[in-house]
């Protein structure tokens, strides 16, 4: 398990421009996880190609807004790969206003849905995606809609509420 991580680290040393970090953890079950932080999104494709070269598989992709006090317009994307049981996570920071990231779908077939999902939920563009259509959200709805139009959720902080029920009871003149 750890051997594959070492192979990937060697390939990164050969093919990636310096500036990234590479940390490895091993838990009590002897399961290794590696955590890589890239300094630029241009390193992403060479990194993914190196992982493919050693037989890695894409697990999934997690895009998110950086939260420092409150959600910002700065996004990060974490790419999770399987290396025969070990997990390698590559995190890429998208600077303020940066919306483009290279698509991994030409390298890993199963990046397709993951990238379409973050395109519609975060309005980040996977450049080079072969089929950049909507996945879950209808075409008529703007991308990153949860970040823009959440008045009700903002108001109730996504909690359940009795307000509507109480208003109806009040209008009907019924006891609350």
């Amino acid at each position, binding site marked *: 398990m750890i051997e594959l991580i070492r192979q990937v680290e060697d390939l990164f040393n050969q093919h990636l421009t310096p500036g990234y970090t590479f940390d490895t953890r091993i*838990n*009590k*079950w*002897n*399961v290794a*996880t590696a*955590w890589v932080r890239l300094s630029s999104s241009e390193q992403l494709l060479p990194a993914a190609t190196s992982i493919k070269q050693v037989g890695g*598989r*894409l*697990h*999934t992709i*997690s895009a*998110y807004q950086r*939260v420092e006090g409150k959600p910002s317009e700065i996004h990060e994307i*974490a790419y*999770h790969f399987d290396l*025969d*049981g*070990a*997990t390698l*996570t590559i995190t890429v920071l998208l600077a303020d206003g940066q919306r483009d990231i290279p698509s991994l779908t030409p390298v*890993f*077939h*199963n990046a*397709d*849905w*993951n990238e379409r999902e973050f395109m519609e939920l975060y309005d980040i563009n996977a450049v080079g995606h072969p089929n950049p259509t*909507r*996945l*879950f*959200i*209808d075409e008529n709805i703007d991308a990153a809609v*949860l970040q823009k139009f959440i008045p009700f*959720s903002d108001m109730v*902080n*996504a*909690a359940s509420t009795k307000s509507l029920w109480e208003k109806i009871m009040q209008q009907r003149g019924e006891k609350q």
Partner: protein
Amino acid sequence: MTRYQMPVGPLHVALEEPMYFKLDLEGETIKGLHISAGHVHRGMEYLVMKRNFYQNITLTERICSLCSNSHPTTFCMALEEIGGIAVPPRGHYLRVIADEIKRVASNLFNVGIMAHIIGFTSLFMHVLETREIVQDIKETLYGNRMDLGANCIGGVKYNLNAESIAYLIKRLNEIAPAVEEIHRIYSTHSSILTRTRGVGVLPNAIALEYGLIGPVARASGVEYDVRAKTPYAIYPELDFATMTRPDGDVWSRAMVRLDEVKVAIDLIRQCLAQLPEGPVAVPGLPTIPAGEAVAKTEAPRGELIYYLRTNGSDMPERLKWRVPSYPNWDALPVMMQDNTVADVALIVNSIDPCISCTER
């Protein structure tokens, strides 16, 4: 021959949940498939960021019903990794028992539905009757037939005593011969074999290229089971094999699930035989520091992965999960190519899809 398109779904008698397929047909032969998702997208990943860790144990259990226990188990594992929390040995055993009970029920449900789709109603009833024993076990041990409420951070919230262990063994002794008989029928009955062998074939190379997982991949000869590849809980101390089949058709996928039911029953028995004494969880409500972790388990449908990012507060900064059904949808266009319209529901069911899980 004229080519035309045919819609299937989003509401369809053979699909338990809504999914919309557009088939490209040449006569009755399928030449292409387009999948349109999103009918039960609930924004749950947004919602979990508005709840604290303890509330999210309850919420994640409600992502899906059939693999409900795998979600809080994996979520708790991610929290425990960040918090450096060591689950007591008995807690690990009880987690595995809960997960394997759910696997028996989930896999039996899927192969039962397969019998229903091909019109073998008496077999469908027989399988579901056997599964009903598992439902009884869940209700008796956990108080619920679907959501077990078994997990907490640092262990589990339930315990087994001599009486409940004796009950569980008694019911397992009823299930085991029934599963053997079901296994034999699925292996040999001509109604099953003629309708499912050679249908919806997924070649091994495509399973690997598409990154498919779980029984779907294992039925195409991909030997990958998280319990063996990424050991967790007490799986390294248990004796089990990874079930694979070489042919990649609808039948092979059903057989892998039945094979895994037998393995799961055996794993529960091993756990009960080795169950150590001691606490079932760490005491108190642990505080989770800032950090990030990935946790993986083998849910009934395959590899379930959770990514958790915390910032020192009691709410996740990001909680993302990728369910086994998510990548497996990709296999359908390959499986359906050159099959007939009559097999659409059968092939869809053979990937044991969970749409609530996929769309969240």
